[in-house]
């Protein structure tokens, strides 16, 4: 058993942290999110060129630096601390994940594009009717000669406004909620028949409703077996959940530390409010939630390499812990900041908003509790 980080992993953390400290302050972030293009392509270029971190989690054989899950965890935690909106999750973790595991023709070249900062991915899996059920798909990819014709509507595709490519789940067969008949495609956003309605999300990210109207795809656009991609989707989604948990740890740390700092400064009744035991114990409970979240993030990250069932159980268990922590730590951080906590001018509220969105990302706490329950205790009667 080993919970330590390699020297390279520690350096990676320091590199990302110090870059963000210099270039991604709260005011810089807010200014950038308020004007076109609503994200920071310069930051993304710096990730690719100056920092070289976009290849950290790819094997050397594919042009990466030879890392994997732990590298994603390290990067995502630092991105969480700075509330970075640039699409590392969608591109490296999810796009990269599908390319690594699905290994379609041309994957190597595409990964090279990711590492170079040229290809940016968004994951179009959710649909308006499907809630958190990733099998609930009305989007269809009808066989047409050697290729497919894609039709459908994907909901709240985070990062789609900045993306060059979409990873799309669609039915090549089966009924609307069947496990079989699901396929995955990589679709250039510029393809004919793809249209989007872009909008901001409440936590400062950008998302789109994405519509596919008779989008013609070649056979090479498909990743994984036709109609057999659900296990692949679940695997990449669990990897995305572990990475999101890591991001949440960064967000939670800032919420917890920011609250401790604030209560030490803020005086009422002539003393710092941090001297009140009722607030001290609340902050201890926030700290415990943070520590338990870090533990579960390690656990889920390590278990990504286990069997499908163990991996899924671990990811859902971690997401339950993180979901609860995001709610508890987020709400109490705002509460302990008093009126200042509900203003737009303090960073704390922005961390709270991200924490709240993470609660529902890739499935709510209830969704993952139910998934864990079935995996651990068997299906309910």
């Amino acid at each position, binding site marked *: *058993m*080993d*919970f*330590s*980080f390699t020297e390279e992993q520690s350096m990676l953390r320091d590199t990302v942290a110090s870059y963000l400290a210099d270039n991604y302050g709260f005011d810089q972030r807010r200014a950038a999110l308020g004007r076109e293009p609503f994200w920071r392509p310069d930051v993304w270029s710096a990730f690719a060129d100056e920092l070289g971190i976009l290849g950290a989690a790819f094997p050397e054989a594919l042009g990466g630096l030879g890392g994997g899950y*732990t590298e994603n965890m390290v990067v995502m935690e630092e991105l969480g601390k700075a509330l970075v909106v640039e699409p590392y999750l969608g591109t490296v973790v999810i796009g990269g994940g599908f390319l690594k595991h699905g290994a379609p023709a041309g994957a190597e070249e595409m990964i090279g594009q990711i590492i170079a900062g040229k290809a940016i991915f968004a994951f179009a899996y959710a649909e308006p009717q499907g809630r958190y059920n990733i099998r609930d798909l009305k989007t269809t990819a009808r066989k047409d000669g050697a290729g497919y014709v894609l039709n459908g509507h994907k909901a709240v595709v985070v990062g789609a406004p900045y993306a060059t490519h979409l990873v799309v789940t669609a039915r090549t067969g089966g009924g609307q909620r069947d496990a079989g008949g699901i396929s995955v495609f990589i679709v250039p956003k510029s393809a004919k028949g793809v249209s989007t309605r872009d909008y901001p999300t409440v936590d400062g990210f950008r998302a789109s409703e994405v519509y596919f109207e008779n989008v013609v795809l070649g056979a090479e656009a498909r990743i994984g077996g036709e109609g057999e991609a659900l296990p692949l989707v679940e695997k990449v989604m669990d990897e995305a959940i572990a990475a999101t948990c890591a991001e949440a740890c960064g967000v939670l740390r800032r919420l917890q530390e920011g609250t*401790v700092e604030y*209560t*030490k400064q803020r005086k009422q009744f002539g003393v710092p409010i*941090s*001297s009140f*035991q009722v607030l*001290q*114990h609340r*902050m*201890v*409970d926030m*700290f*415990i939630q943070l*520590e*338990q*979240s*870090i*533990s*579960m993030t*390690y*656990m889920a*990250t*390590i*278990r990504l390499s286990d069997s499908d069932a163990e991996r899924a159980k671990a990811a859902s*268990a971690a997401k*339950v*812990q993180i979901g609860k922590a995001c709610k508890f730590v987020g709400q109490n951080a705002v509460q302990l900041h008093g009126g200042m906590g509900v203003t737009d001018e303090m960073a704390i509220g922005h961390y709270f908003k991200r924490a709240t969105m993470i609660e529902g990302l890739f499935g709510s706490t209830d969704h993952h*509790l139910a998934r*864990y*329950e079935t995996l*651990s*205790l068997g299906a*309910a*009667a």
Partner: protein
Amino acid sequence: MNLDFSPEDNAFRQEVRTFIAENYPQALREKQERGETLGKEDQLSWHRILAKKGWAVPSWPVELGGTGWTPTQKYIWSEEQARADTIGVLPFGVSMLAPVLYNFGTEEQKQRFLPGIRDGLVWWCQGYSEPGSGSDLASLKTRAERVTGDDGEEYYIVNGQKTWTTLGQHADWGFFLVRTDPDAKPQSGISFLLIDMKSPGISVRRITTLEGGHEVNDVFLDNVKVPVENRVFHENQGWTCAKALLAHERSGIAGVARSKRGLERLRQMASTELSDAGGALIQDAFFRRKVAELEIDLTALEFTELRTLAGESSGKGPGPESSILKIKGTEIQQRLQELALEAAGHYGAPFLGEAGHNSGIGPQHSLDLAGDYFNGRKTSIYGGSNEIQRNIISKMVLGL
């Protein structure tokens, strides 16, 4: 980062498992299964077997009898003991007093007392709390006055009352915090004394707990004469020893391995108990949700403990963060007891004691569950209540 056990670790696990299987006393196992109260000799029998093997005091310095196990080996050791439902080695001598002795005691004190602790020959009890001093331990009033006896030797004459002395009814010796300077600040006037429980003037009175059991006691000290050489560390500096004792041996305090075993038993029980709908209770939507949440919380605690252990092995030492282990560990133990009692349904009610095991009343697995639940409320109170643990984290970790 990985969770892999090395081939050496796996070999160690096999060795430990085989040793327990071949050496755990059959008579003790049967008494446990019948739910009998274990007597002094029962409690010590397993300790003595481990002492012979050299495994009674794994965490001690190797030169004093410790095993020098890695954190992973200690983790395996606690898992295998829980798996085999062994009783534990009592903590009073081994985990509480011994570290004080080998950190603060004289050479003579170490030689005199440590072997008896290690080998399970002397039963120790703790004299800390008083009726007026619980969480505010430093306010303790038991008085020790230094006098010169007729024989020209120096003694302390000790007067006062200690309480919550666990298993003091069996104790040969006790370690006590007493006030030697009533005029100093509370923490500065306390000394740490080792007292022979057979000394004239000591009386032990049973306190019966909610479930009817006899674990804790009042200890009255009436002009008890204690030789000065039985004081550990300097006069009036016993608080230093007391604090060190509280900070020691935090790993293991979480009880992760025992709780995992408890969860297994709960799941087993809930698969034979029936729900209102007639299926297995574990199929009941509400009940299974609670079990799943508990399982997840236990996983989080396990990994927090593993991180703490990893920190210790890299020389960081158990920090005040380990108060998290106490808080979450005891919360989980209590939730397990709560769910087990819930699972028992009607048969949680019969109060049959040891006779219950042959009574044919209700299923065997329901016996004593209410008792365990009532008794288990102590865990969030003892060892520094969970509220005091929050004070510790607040002050020592968050700097509030």
